[in-house]
């Protein structure tokens, strides 16, 4: 039996909402655009990403896997050749990091609303004549989110390693600078965002129907579910922290100001 498809006799304005429903999608569009513009500028700037004295590597350039990387910045070797000046090192890693964010369930909601107006806000008519959602190419590729999650785990592990390296003094030995603390905050937020992912929640235990037979996975699922409730906040916090730490390392590497050392 098929469902009735008659439309309501009420054809009215696009929306009767009287609140400022356009404000959240506008804020999202501005926030995401600012990040994308910063990321592009920073990537193709292709300098000031390694502060050798403080051992700070900018997160946008980590891991630095190209022969074009400045000496000392490649902690994991240089498997990729120096192709051209317009192919900076992040080109080999950023697609995976961006893919994780692009296919993230929270960001999907954010950019579908802010950029594609599908819908711009709840109970506000969208402008498109047809709609197939994520059932067809290219949006069906959103189902690859879990694969990007696996690569995001690797990248988070590498950034953790970078942060450990940042606990070095300018003259050797143990040391902590302001940049070290910022990198710690950044890596904690990145781990929290990555582990709060809906795919992680599913893979760690959500796919099980009998939690009582898997007490350890059930416990982990409970923890991840707790984090998952803050996925939106963590998505924004980690986005901002990555950009800020990158900016900080850039300024230190460029010699704009000395890194305040707390322990050296």
């Amino acid at each position, binding site marked *: 039996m098929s469902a009735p498809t008659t439309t309501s006799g009420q054809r009215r304005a696009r929306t009767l909402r009287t609140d400022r429903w356009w404000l959240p999608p506008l804020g999202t569009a501005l926030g995401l655009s600012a990040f994308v513009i910063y990321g592009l500028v920073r990537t193709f700037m292709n300098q000031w990403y390694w502060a050798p004295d403080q051992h700070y590597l900018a997160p946008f350039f980590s891991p630095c896997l190209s022969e074009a990387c400045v000496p000392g910045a490649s902690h994991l070797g240089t498997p990729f050749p120096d192709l051209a000046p317009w192919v900076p090192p992040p080109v080999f890693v950023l697609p995976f990091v961006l893919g994780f964010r692009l296919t993230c369930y929270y960001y999907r909601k954010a950019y579908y609303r802010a950029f594609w107006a599908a819908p711009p806000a*709840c109970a506000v008519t969208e402008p498109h004549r047809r*709609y*197939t959602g994520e059932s067809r190419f290219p949006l069906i590729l959103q*189902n690859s989110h*879990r694969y990007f999650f696996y690569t995001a785990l690797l990248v988070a592990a590498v950034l953790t390693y970078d942060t450990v390296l940042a606990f070095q003094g300018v003259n050797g030995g143990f040391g902590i600078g302001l940049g070290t603390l910022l990198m710690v905050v950044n890596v904690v937020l990145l781990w929290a965002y990555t582990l709060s992912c809906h795919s992680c929640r599913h893979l760690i235990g*959500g796919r099980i129907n009998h939690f009582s037979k898997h007490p350890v996975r059930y416990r982990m699922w409970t923890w991840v579910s707790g984090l998952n409730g803050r996925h939106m906040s963590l998505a924004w916090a980690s986005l901002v922290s990555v950009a800020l730490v990158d900016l900080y390392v850039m300024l230190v590497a460029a010699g704009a100001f000395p890194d305040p050392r707390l322990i050296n």
Partner: protein
Amino acid sequence: MGYQARLRVWRGDSESGELRDYEVEAEEGEVVLDLLHRLQATRCPDLAVRWNCKAGKCGSCSAEVNGRPRLTCMTRMSLFDPDEVVTVTPMRTFPVIKDLVCDVSYNYVKAREVPAFTPPEGLEPGEYRMQQRDVERSQEFRKCIECFLCQDTCHVIRDHAENKEAFSGPRFLMRVAELEMHPLDDYAERGGDRPEESRGEHGLGMCNITKCCTDVCPEHIRITDNALIPLKERVADRRYDPILRFFRRKKE
């Protein structure tokens, strides 16, 4: 202290209609449904309003107040400025029968398309035994009062009536998730595949998880995070993840 509230109410039927302005006495603590009843009692005896419990538990009085899908019995007039015009319209997604009353039969058609709970063979009602932690995910979805506000706000059918055939809406995808996660549901053992059916027959792929269903739910069910996304992930297990499919055990 009472005041004259300004109501703008949709009056009409399936063919035509218009918004009409009324002034109605409002008392402190009243909700929108109280004013609709007063309007009906004093000036518009033919005003059609569906209602029942006045306690936010029957899901009958769903409508749109200032453009937002809401239960009128749970929408306090104190939310609005006394001089603000409060617009009340029927749910936009469904055909109007009269005034604020809609034909929600679409939902009952979709409800019938979801295969029922299938207990293990030989297990009679009253013999079901399960641990709380196994069933609590499904229990969250049982809070649904079937007000159909989630269906009303879902843009997949709200803005594209042509999708009603292929898309069951958040309410019934949640019902599929409820049964799929149920520890005693034996549907898969009988050859069924609820995630695959949610993708194929119920149109899960059309959902782009923009969370409006969660935003309007008067029972605060986390429809998107706890039902739709887990269901999408189970579809990904079966259909889009060859690696996991290789390692998948038949039943966990």
